[in-house]
């Protein structure tokens, strides 16, 4: 009888420990939100919300100092858009290749290659960008190589694994009966894949694109090494000219920033954080809409 009592007690203790461990994730998220906002919001208040978000002048060391991040917001948007333009078509086609056209022996080569691409650290991508892509752009397209073009190419490559693996799963999950219906009507394989199967997978493909956007927008090291990091006035932004993103802004100046400057950089992080949260919410909405259908 005593044994049962003890094991009941042990059971309850362990259950509590498991539950507490699970709560740590929640605690962590709360802590991150709390401390980021604690340092970041007062700074935005001091600078002035409109001045922070909509001013393109970023000059913390000027007198008077200005803390507008509009140029960096534009920078992040441009390089992310560029990454999507480059990475999504190639990635989607590659996913279609893996799911529908790839023979087994080729799959054994291409699929591990995609997984390997996913595991390469961003510093390697950044360095590769700096040593290979930047000279290439400089010699063949113009400018000094550091800029939106190079950043888009590198980010486009970096989001390939995300686009490919999630899109491939979605395409594979499409019921075979849809394909059979199409073949029965006399369509070719390519017509069936592009007109019936891929459209049926569009919710999963959209998910992969949104995750790709999150990855590209949040990328720091690779961008810092190829984008040039110059704060550009909005009307001077060009494909082959340097640009600074929100992420690069933080990394470039944090080491020597202090006071309001340092807080403004943290506020840049807050803006990034909020953007990612919005992205996550959109993802959940898409997922629940897909489930309802």
């Amino acid at each position, binding site marked *: 009888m005593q044994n049962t009592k003890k094991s009941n007690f042990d059971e309850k203790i362990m259950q509590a420990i498991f539950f507490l461990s699970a709560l740590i994730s929640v605690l962590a998220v709360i802590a991150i939100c709390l401390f980021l906002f604690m340092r970041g919001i007062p700074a935005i208040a001091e600078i002035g919300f409109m001045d922070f978000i909509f001013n393109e002048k970023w000059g913390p060391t000027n007198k008077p100092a200005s803390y507008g991040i509009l140029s960096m917001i534009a920078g992040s948007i441009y390089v992310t858009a560029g990454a999507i333009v480059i990475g999504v078509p190639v990635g989607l086609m590659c996913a279609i290749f893996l799911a529908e056209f790839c023979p087994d022996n080729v799959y054994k080569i291409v699929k591990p290659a995609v997984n390997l691409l996913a595991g390469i650290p961003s510093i390697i991508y950044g360095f590769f960008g700096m040593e290979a892509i930047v000279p290439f752009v400089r010699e063949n397209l113009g400018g000094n190589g550091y800029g939106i073009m190079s950043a888009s190419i590198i980010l486009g490559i970096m989001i390939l694994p995300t686009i490919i693996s999630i899109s491939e799963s979605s395409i594979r999950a499409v*019921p075979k*009966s*849809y394909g*059979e*219906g*199409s*073949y*029965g*009507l*006399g*369509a*070719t394989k390519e*017509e069936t894949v592009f*007109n*019936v199967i891929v*459209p*049926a997978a569009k919710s999963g493909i959209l998910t992969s694109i949104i995750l790709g956007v999150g990855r590209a927008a949040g990328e720091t090291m690779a961008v810092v090494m190829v984008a040039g990091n110059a704060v550009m006035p909005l009307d001077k932004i060009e494909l082959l000219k340097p640009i600074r993103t929100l992420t690069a802004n933080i990394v470039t100046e944090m080491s020597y920033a202090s006071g309001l400057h340092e807080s403004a950089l943290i506020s840049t992080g807050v803006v990034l954080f909020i953007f990612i949260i919005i992205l996550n919410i959109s993802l959940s909405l898409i997922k629940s809409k897909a489930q309802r*259908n």
Partner: protein
Amino acid sequence: MTDKIKIENVNLYYGEFQALKNINMNVKENEITAFIGPSGCGKSTLLKSLNRMNDLIEGVKITGRILLDDADIYGDMDATVLRRRVGMVFQKPNPFPMSIYENVAYGPKTHGVKSKAKLDEIVEKSLRSAAMWDEVKDRLKKNALSISGGQQQRLCIARAFSVNPEVILLDEPTSALDPISTMKIEDLLTEIKKDYTIVIVTHNMQQATRISDKTAFFLHGEAIEFDETEKLFSMPKNKKTEDYITGRFG
């Protein structure tokens, strides 16, 4: 009445396993021919050979000839052309996850019809042929997956009509449906047979007696007996046929 489809000395192998053994029969134009037999007897396999859907399965080997209007379907004929001429309705309704309109317009669009007016015309004609037009004409943009199972299957029939086939193959088309939907489809087939050649695989012997002109009984990959439906069911020539019909096995 001419022989629309001639099946000559057809053997089919899934890898090592022989699924069809020396099949010889002719399907007449503008008739309903039924394939009956127990599970695994080869009736669906033969059906799927008539529009080369078996090509999509790996490891399938077929010998002999199948002629459509005296042309070998495994010869010079392109499979996509064949499948436009020989349409198929599957056992489980499989409408595309698109609108009702898009489902029916898919076939003609694929085969080159671009004009919206022409597509509208084809969609209406196909849905009318499937006795569905009045039910769905106000909801053409609705998602095809939102209508009932019976309606979905009739939609698949309308879809099969949309490419103007000469032959329609149906693989146990009503086995997943309720009796009323089944009746609607059987009435439909009986009505349209004057314009098409129909081959139907069915598990339901009553269905075969209700609608078919000729019936073929299959067992273990062989065509045991092939005769006018009335004769086969009332005075079967082969004992195995008689055993199946009277329910001694299968």
